[in-house]
């Protein structure tokens, strides 16, 4: 593996690479995100944003109580978010636990959802506390069952202890398992990394190790995809592109529940990395409740009034 020529795989080269990153000023990053949150997105641009956001949703269910019935319902919703309106696009992917991948893939294929990929959370999600053998097997299982996207978690314990090389090597190992078969999204759990300096460091570490996407959170820890965290990650992918000419995707997940939240995310993308990232190949939003709010806002643009939640399907 060449790691884009940025590191040679040794701990020394990784330390030097991460050591050259400039710091992030917390107050400044939060102020910039807050300023961008004041953008007023109306009429035609709101319609465009809602439509685009729907295609970016990784429709997710990650519960101990998930059953084949629940996952099938989710898949149906993913393919045709609004059964009464075929002009509503399908979502970006469905995101489930490892053991539900096969159910999801089979059902999607059955209902005409071949174009919707299945993403599997992996590597002992959400805590990441398992042996490497288990993490690799977890990933292999998911790919064998039909997952085209792997959402792995990093070992936050290793990261916070300063064992960056261990985190790096884990991502490299999972990247190898994914090969050409699956896209790799690397989850930082930014609510546990806490500082923006750590988020920036984790972003550059994961990108050099072979991530296709960097993702904020598991959805199990708060705070999750706050606008400043996403801003710092977008700045990282922008800088990484300048260094390597490779575009890495970003996936905020957790806490994005309303159309307003989603539009704020799209504004961050637009004014930080620019329009190249405004498509589901490079930007996804991990969410569940968000989709229905997008649908209701979409109806409002057409009808001029807010519908009752009874007019959108619960799952």
């Amino acid at each position: 593996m060449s790691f884009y020529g940025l590191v040679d795989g040794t701990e020394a080269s990784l330390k030097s690479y991460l050591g050259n990153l400039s710091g992030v000023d917390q107050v400044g990053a939060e102020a910039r995100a807050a300023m961008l949150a004041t953008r007023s997105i109306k009429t035609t641009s709101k319609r465009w944003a809602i439509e685009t956001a729907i295609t970016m949703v990784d429709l997710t269910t990650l519960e101990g109580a998930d059953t084949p019935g629940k996952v099938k319902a989710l898949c149906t919703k993913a393919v045709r978010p609004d059964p009464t309106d075929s002009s509503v696009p399908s979502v970006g992917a469905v995101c489930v636990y490892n053991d539900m991948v096969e159910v999801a893939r089979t059902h999607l294929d059955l209902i005409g959802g071949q174009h919707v990929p299945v993403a599997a959370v992996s590597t002992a999600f959400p805590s990441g506390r398992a042996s490497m053998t288990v993490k690799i097997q977890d990933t292999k299982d998911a790919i064998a069952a039909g997952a085209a996207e792997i959402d792995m978690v990093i070992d936050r314990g290793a990261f916070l202890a300063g064992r960056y090389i261990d985190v790096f090597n884990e991502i490299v190992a999972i990247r190898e398992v994914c090969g050409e078969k699956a896209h790799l999204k690397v989850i930082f759990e930014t609510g546990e990394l806490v500082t923006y300096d750590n988020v920036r460091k984790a972003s550059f570490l994961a990108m050099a190790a072979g991530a296709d996407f960097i993702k904020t959170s598991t959805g199990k820890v708060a705070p999750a995809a706050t606008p400043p965290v996403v801003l710092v990650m977008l700045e990282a992918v922008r800088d990484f592109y300048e260094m390597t000419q490779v575009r890495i995707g970003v996936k905020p997940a957790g806490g994005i529940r309303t159309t307003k939240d989603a539009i704020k995310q799209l504004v961050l993308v637009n004014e930080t990395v620019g329009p190249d990232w405004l498509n589901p190949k490079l930007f996804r939003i991990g969410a569940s409740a968000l989709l229905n709010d997008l649908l209701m806002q979409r109806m409002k643009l057409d009808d001029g009034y807010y519908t009752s939640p009874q007019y959108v399907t619960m799952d």
Partner: protein
Amino acid sequence: METDMTFEYAPAPESRAIVTIKPKYGHFIGGKFVPGSKHFPTINPATEEVLSQIALAGKADVDAAVKAARKAYTSTWSKMSGKERGKYLYRIARIMQERAREFAVLETLDNGKPIRESRDTDIPLAAAHFFYHAGWADKLEYAGLGTSPKPLGVAGQIIPWNFPLLMLAWKVAPALAAGNTVVLKPAESTPLTALLFAEVCQQAELPAGVVNIVTGDGSTGALIVNHPGIDKIAFTGSTEVGKIIARAVAPTKKSVTLELGGKAANIVFDDAPIDETVEGIVNGIFFNQGHVCCAGSRLLLQESVAEEVLHKLKNRMEKIRVGDPMDKNTDVGAINSKEQLAKIIELSAVGDAEGAERWSPACELPSKGFWFAPTIFTGVTQAHRIAREEIFGPVLSVLTFRTPQEAIEKANNTPFGLSAGIWSEKGSRTLWASQQLRAGVIWANTFNKFDPTSPFGGYKESGWGREGGRHGLAAYLKGVSHE
């Protein structure tokens, strides 16, 4: 599935229906609006639309205003307890908050600044100044400014056009809290929010004559400065006019505070947090179209990071949204007047002639009104006029340095000394640099942040005295050092 990859923000204009602009205004003297004799127009600089006709105060008007202020001072305001004065100030602050949207829309129409800034910065800060000083009104004895501090009397206050209502608040709130009465003249090109403030004084039932507002041009200002019935002059504006005022009041008993020009150094060390630094540079010079006396108009970059910072700065500038100030998504609005635009164009041409390299992002400017694209000049040295003279527009001069010592020497090598910025992740370096810089306000890893509790003012040709905080209060009390 390919999406149409354009995210153009549709127009999001703030409604102007909330404001009622009268076709003609008079002065506010003795608690009443009194008609003027001569008038001049005030326009919207973004469209050149005439908004209203403004009265030009002559000697009789200024005399009447000073007389009303003296009467209010002697009979009412200086006798009132601090606690009672505080109640009026709190009331004014609350009404300003209640009518914030009205003030914001009016400020943007008359000044040309983006509604986002008048809504999120000017008006909330103006109200904050009244709240802060309301709290001092009954605590003056405990401010460390003497055991029995006394007001000066009648204050003549002349304010600029860049932050019309905010500068009014900086002047009026401390004067009233300390027990003075005022005669205030707003800038010729931006009188409307001051006249709305007069309405707020009526609404708050402020005793007649405590606040008097006369409108006019420089000739009205001169009448105030030279009026024998005035005890104190407070001026914010150009260094040129500041010098004239200093000469005029020198042989009199008047106290004076001057808040004048600047040419602030914004110093970027090689260990700066680069992305936030770029935001700070943009905020430092393009906030309020660069019509900011403390603007970070001289960018000093450490050579080892200069290329990276400039590259990111240019990319960032491509995203600046220039245009209709009433659009909620506008970042940079209109230049305040034809005269100011001419000055910016002239000094930028000097930059070209002196061999500096000019760069602006591609941006479409409206055909009507006064506009100037955000601009940077690279390859500037200390010997360039654009590194020494205040442009007071969206124009940044970029210089480089090799060592921290050189940065400080360059930063201090100016007749001004209002503000400075330091960008570094190293606390020891920031503290060291802030001790070396000869500037009244120094920001670390931020720029253009204002707070009523913090004194603001300059060294050298940037002015005399401080406004805001305990220091600002001292400037309106007898027998207290004004430095």
